């Protein structure tokens, strides 16, 4: 049985008169230890799927299950420990007036973990930041360092699932490589399950074994990494994305 099952999910925002159907009947399943990608352009609903999973967007239709448990209604406290999210913009997702230590201590105190000091030190080490970073404020960190803190905050609760929403798109290319390597290593070491959302096909191809292409709130098609490498996309939209990701010349040639 799959660890995470999303069955015919739909998410609607707004009230009668100005309704926006952000997600329209999306289904997929992710196995334990797998890394699953969701690719799409802005407004495709890819981030909303993640937000619905973690409880930040209303589920207006369909079913979400984790380990066979239905997520409808009030979710158990345990869920909020096991499933953690890393957001796109490390500049916006860390409290500007909390030190790294405070950022990491808060989830520990919410979930009543013992020996917090030692856990914080270990979490920082795990993401490649030394103890020297512990009492810094976000403005004293670079973008890559902030994203490492955000990953440490997610990992400190010993989760099973990480939901990654464009974790590297605000970072420079060289820093992106470091963060992707870090995420790769952590998954291998801890048997984590990832759902990674990105607009960048290359990032998803690198990180995920399977992926879902989304457009206008709907699933276009599901592909494996091998399909992607073999350019074996069935749908026009996926083909267009593939060509566009190769840069200008390739895209211009196919158009003319």
């Amino acid at each position, binding site marked *: 049985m799959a660890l995470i099952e999303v069955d015919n999910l739909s998410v609607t925002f707004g009230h009668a008169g100005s309704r926006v159907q952000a997600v329209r009947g999306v289904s997929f399943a992710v196995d334990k230890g797998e890394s699953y990608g969701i690719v799409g352009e802005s407004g495709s609903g890819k981030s909303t799927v993640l937000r619905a999973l973690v409880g930040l967007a209303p589920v207006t239709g369909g079913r979400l299950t984790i380990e066979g448990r239905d997520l409808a209604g009030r979710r158990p406290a345990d869920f909020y420990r096991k499933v953690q999210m890393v957001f796109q913009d490390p500049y916006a997702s860390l409290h500007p007036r909390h030190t790294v230590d405070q950022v990491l201590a808060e989830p520990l105190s919410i979930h009543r973990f013992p020996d917090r000091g030692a856990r914080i030190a270990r979490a920082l080490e795990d993401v490649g930041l030394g103890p020297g970073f512990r009492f810094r404020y976000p403005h004293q960190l670079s973008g890559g360092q902030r994203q490492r803190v955000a990953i440490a905050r997610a990992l400190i609760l010993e989760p099973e699932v990480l939901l990654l929403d464009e974790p590297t798109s605000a970072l420079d290319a060289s820093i992106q490589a*470091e963060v992707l390597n870090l995420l790769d290593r952590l998954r291998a070491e801890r048997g984590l399950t990832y759902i990674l959302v990105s607009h960048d096909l290359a990032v998803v191809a690198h990180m995920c074994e399977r992926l879902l292409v989304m457009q206008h709130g709907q699933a276009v098609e599901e592909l494996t990494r091998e399909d992607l490498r073999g350019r074996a996309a069935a749908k026009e939209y996926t083909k267009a994305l593939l060509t566009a*990701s190769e840069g200008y010349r390739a895209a211009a040639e196919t158009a003319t």
Partner: protein
Amino acid sequence: MSALLDVEDLRVSFPSRSGPVEAVRGVSFTLGRERLGIVGESGSGKSQTGRAILGLTPPPGRTEARRLTFDGKDLRHASAAEWRAIRGKRISMVMQDPKFSLNPVMTVGRQLMEAAARGTAARDARAQALAMLEAVQIREPERVFRAYPHELSGGMGQRAMIAMMLITEPDLLIADEPTSALDVTVQIEVLRILDRLVRERGMGLIFISHDLRLVSSFCDRVLVMYAGKVVEELRASELTKARHPYTQGLFNCLPRIEGDRRPLPVLERDADWAR
């Protein structure tokens, strides 16, 4: 062919408590009627280079150069009146995000007409604006003309902005990350428009971007900047033959759809590069 723009030893510095900080440290290049890419990571000085050419270094920053000539005119000591004759008319700039560069309380059409040469009759300006919107591949120019910026998508807004920058038929366009806020499929369309304008109008283009792969597939020549300096200049087609370890590192650390390199090669910075 004489150079359209000639830059030698351009320096931009900002005062700070511990003395001036140089954001651009001695950049030199010449530009003809071609597509020149400037690539670098955040803080490399690529955007400040673009702004300095137009005399737009934000105060209290200071710009110095041994030579800064545009079409034979020395820009270093240009007066406010001289700048007015150049900015917008002969050199235009497209910024990254249309959300922040279009006036939110003016319709696109009015902004375009304002950009059109002064002294033009309103009806001519309107016709010009509509023609320009069509030139940037906007399918319903009349609708976009009447629309406010918030009523347009990102790609539409960016096209409207390019239209505005090009309505004066400049000789040089400086585009600072013009497509970074756009989806990949829209990105290609915007590039196609720029490409056509360079070819058909013989415009010079400076394309500033962090995306090495995109720039190399679009431009003729690429300058790679690191810590305020140009570390390498190469023909875009010869990117794979880059000599400088920074350029090589930048190119290699990108994940690729094919090829499974795990872990990704990480850029090892060398303090010597910044010297």
